[in-house]
Structure formats: C-alpha cells, structure tokens
C-alpha cells in the first residue's frame, strides 16, 4: 500500500492525459493510446474512492525513543 500512487497523483495524471487529448494535433493511434491511459487511470481513481476500510494506525513510543505506527482497530467496536 505505501507504493500505491495517491489519488492526487492519479487524478493529476488523468487530467494531463485528457488535456493532451483535447490539445489536438494527434494521430489516431496517439489518441487511442491516450484514451486507453485516461480510462485506466479513471478505474484506479474509482477503485481508491470505493475503498471503505479506513486505514488507522497508532503512534507508539519505542524503548529507544523512536516511534512506530501500529494498526489501531478498537474504534470500530463502539
């Protein structure tokens, strides 16, 4: 999950692809490729938006003074 692109990034890339499509002066192959890319990005965006499970972690102080982030689940049982 940390390697996943953020919604911000994906949406920005999709905007850029559509902008290029609209800028015109493209061959049909280029248009089709851009359209395929925009559609794929839209799917990724929607997959993110459809995610209902909130990822919650709790900061814990470690013995060596640093912090770690452990999963925090108990809020849902309330």
């Amino acid at each position: 999950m940390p390697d996943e692109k953020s919604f911000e990034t994906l949406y920005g890339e999709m905007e850029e692809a559509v902008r290029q499509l609209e800028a015109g002066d493209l061959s049909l192959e280029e248009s089709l490729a851009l359209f395929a890319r925009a559609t794929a990005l839209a799917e990724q965006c929607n997959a993110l938006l459809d995610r209902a499970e909130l990822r919650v972690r709790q900061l814990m102080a470690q013995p060596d003074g640093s912090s770690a982030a452990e999963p925090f689940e108990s809020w849902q049982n309330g």
Partner: protein
Amino acid sequence: MPPANIYSVSQVSAYIKSLFVSDMLLADVWLSGEVSGFTQASSGHCYFTLKDAGAILKSVIWRTQARGMALPRNGDAVIVHGAISVYEQGGAYQLYVDHLEPAGVGQLWLEFERLKARLEAEGLFDDERKRPIPARPVRLGVVTSPTAAALRDILRTLSQRYGLVDVILAPTPVQGDQAPPAIVAALAALNRWSAEREPLDAIILARGGGAIEELWAFNDERVARAIAASAVPVITGVGHETDFTIADFVADLRAPTPTGAATLATPDGRELSAAVAALTARAERQLDGHLADERARVEGLAVRLRRAAPAARLATNRQRVDDLSRRGALAITNAVRQQRARLRGEGLRLTALDPSRVLARGYAIVATADGAVVHSVAQVTPGDAVRVRVADGAFGATVTTDDRR
C-alpha cells in the same frame, strides 16, 4: 417645640429604598463572597447569605433565575451579579441575584482573557500565519482521547467521505492537569513522524463537548504554542458549536466539533467520483470527434481512389476502343470508297479501250490473208489481198498503193 415633619415608617422606608434604587453601583454590582444558609423554598425562590469576614449580605434568587443556574452549596466561594435594594416589609436591604458562578471559574476566565490578549499581540492568531489544508490529503494525524466518542465520530466521518486517506492516531488525555503536556508531546511526535517517516497533510486536534473546566486544556498556553509551532497544519474541533478556545484561535482552521474537523480535512468522495466521470466524458468526446474526423478523411480518399481505380481505367479504355473502332471503321469505309472510285475511273478508261467500242467509232482492223493484224505498211505490198473488219462485219480488199510516212 414639636419637629417640623413627622414621617411614617413606610414613608421613610420608601425614601431609603429610593436611595438604593437610584444608586448606579448598587443597581448593577458584581460581588464575591461565601455562600451560607442556602435554602430553596417550595415556591422555588432561593435564599442565602453572602458573607465575608467583615459583613453579611442577605441574598435572593428568584425562581425564574434559579432555573437557569447551577445552584451553590454552603461554603462555596462564588461570584455573583445583581442589584441591591430594600425589602420594606422586612426592614432589610437585599441582594437580588441574576448571575452566580463558582469563584474559580471567574478566575479562569480572567486568565483566558489575559492569555488571549497576549498571544494575539504576538501575532499568533494572524490570518497570514494560517496555512491552507490540502484538498485531497494522503495522510492525516489525529490527536484526541482514544476512548471518547469524539474519535469514533472522526473516524466514521473520514470513512464515509474519503476512506482512502491514511490515519495516524496520537492518543492523549484531553482534560485534567496532565492533558496540556500530553497534547504538546502528541503534536511533537506527529510532526517528527511527518518530517522523518511519512508526510502528514494535516493534524486534527479534537475533544468532545463538556463544561468549561473540562475544555480548559485547550486554553493552555503550552498547547497554543505547540499548535503555532507545528509544521503540519492543525485543524481544531473542540467542544460544541459555541465553544471557542485559545487553541481554536491559533489553529490553521477551526471546526465547531470533532465531526466538523474531519469534514473540513477531507474532500467529499462523491464529488470526486463525479469529477472523474466528467474527465472520462471529456476524453470520450475527444475520441469520438477524432474518429469522426478520421472517417471523413478516409471517405475523401475513397472518392479519389474510385476515380483513379482500374475499373475506371477500363471504362476509359473501352471508350477509347470504341473511338478507335469508329475511326477505324470510318477509315476502312473511306478506303473502300476511294478504291471504288479508282476502279470506276479505271472502268471508264477500260470501257474507253474496248475494241468493239473503238470499231464503233469508225476504226477498222485490217488483217492479212493469214490473219495477222496489219499495223504497219511494211506488212503489205500493192496487190496483196487483205481482210477488213468493221463494227458490224468484215470484207475483202486489195492493197493498191501505200503512203509510206
């Protein structure tokens, strides 16, 4: 001698009362003192004595005022507001109370006002200091009690609006003496995490509703300075709609409640879905348009191709062949005509050369006795017998003389 004026008790009492009522201080006065002898009658009216070391003041709280108040207990140090007037039937002056609060709270509010003024003068509340909250956060920090309802409200709101956001919780007590240093430590820990491990887009600092003393940690100077020093923008959601703490003034953004803070921290997922759909629609329109242009271009090419195609050429050739045929036919016809004409010419000449036609013109053919045609005088001598043919027959003749030329 008798006195000039003898007043009744009522008259003098009324006069004394008018002195009290017209006194500006006594008509609108704040007092502090200790409560004793507090009772509430069946009528609902409250009676007590407000006292200090040197004096006492009989006090009344009317039923209607008492309903909106947290009533004091004997021994409580209180701050009251009201008017001092005269109860003529009792021959006493009394304080009629319209506001009462524990003395400690009054002190707190004084401190609050002083701290607020000081921090404001330092510029900690300035609008220019407030940073914008990112519209589509990747990661949020949350500082609140791990057991209270506020945390559940925040997390549920985040789930519903924008479930893809990553949340890091730094739990702390949010009331009592240990709260301010714990909140300061939590803010520091989240800032360190943001700087060293995973960046945070904002921190929500929240606690649910409560009495003024319960919210007091958020009026603490240490908490205010920690918020001001936070590199990560802070959104506060403390208490109820009408509660304003010093933390709220210093924060980058203030929400009226914990749920409100979660709402302000995130975009509405449904609006984002709509935005993605709109982008997809734009892309589709563009592609449709491009395909239509391509179709038109190909159509144009097809038209040109049809004109240049072999089928077309064949048709042209056929026409050429037809042309040639026609011309050829014409040529032949002409040639034949010419031949005929020539032949006719020859025919005419031939006809002209036909012997019988010659004879018909008066010419004769002379032949010797042995049948040889005489064409020269050398062939005969006078006295030879010759035959003379003419058009319609022949006769014998004898050569008499010759005229050699």
